[in-house]
């Protein structure tokens, strides 16, 4: 496991909802992240179509945005979502995993600004787009394993 993968795994480990959705970090850059949620019928919004509920996409985008910020901080500082805007471009395809890409494109001492997309295979053919702001330096942060 690379240090990036190890860092990514640590960021999601012990987050019950992320684990419940089967979320996994695919890629981490400096201020960017890609994460995935595998398709699961029990997370659909309608059993007839099997399409995943928007809430699953919201969770994935929110979490991926947070990871993009953590990757830029390179620390487990406490962050809190201030607001999240999601545009739904098209319905997700039933049976297919959903990926999210998020980029923290601006960071001040107190606020981080993130944008991103949710997609199946092509980032340029998104299911949804997100724009979000996060507060930095809030309580509830975690220390990396082994840190004092």
């Amino acid at each position, binding site marked *: 496991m690379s240090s990036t993968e190890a860092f990514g795994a640590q960021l999601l480990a*012990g*987050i*019950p*909802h*992320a684990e*419940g959705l089967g979320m996994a970090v695919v890629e981490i850059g400096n201020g960017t992240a890609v994460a995935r949620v595998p398709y699961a*019928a*029990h*997370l*659909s*919004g*309608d*059993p*007839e179509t099997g399409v*995943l*509920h*928007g*809430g*699953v996409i*919201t*969770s*994935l*985008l*929110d*979490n991926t945005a947070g990871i993009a910020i953590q990757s830029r901080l390179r620390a487990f500082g*406490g962050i*809190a*979502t*201030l*607001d*999240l*805007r*999601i*545009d*739904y471009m098209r*319905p997700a395809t039933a049976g297919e995993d959903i990926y999210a890409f998020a980029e923290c494109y601006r960071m001040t001492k107190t606020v981080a600004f993130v944008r991103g997309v949710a997609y199946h295979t092509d980032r340029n053919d998104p299911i949804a787009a997100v724009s979000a702001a996060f507060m930095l330096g809030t*309580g*509830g*942060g*975690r220390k990396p394993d082994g840190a004092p």
Partner: protein
Amino acid sequence: MSAGDRLPARPLSQILGDAARTGSRPDLAELIAAIPYARYLGIVVERKGTEITTVLRFGQHLIGNPVLPALHGGVVGGFLETTAIMQVVFEANAGVMPKPVDINIDYLRSGRPVDTYGRAVITKLGRRVVNVHAEAWQEEHDRPIATLRGHFLLPIGD
């Protein structure tokens, strides 16, 4: 037995289609029980006359920050989106599920590990687009933990 434990007897399309055809209000307790994601989260709907309250029963699988602990932002967002959709289904009674176009969520306080309640108000019921405002709270209704503003699309009437 509570509504959330009820086995879905009919598919979504039939619940909504029958209600629209007969002009009667859709049974939201039956509807929510037919949505797998809502069952997974633990959402039930309570109706008192025309007042609809959604309830997100707390469960450990909803936690996004185990240190505080706090509900996951996506859970709160998904709950608010579901609350908004229930209100649109109830008032528009268009025979199908409304499709979200966009949603804006403001996170006001961290969601504590207790039950969460939701209410939505339709600010404009258009022919094709519905504007909705929803809020989620825990113990005190006047201290919401998050609010949502969203647009939902209805099918074109034939």
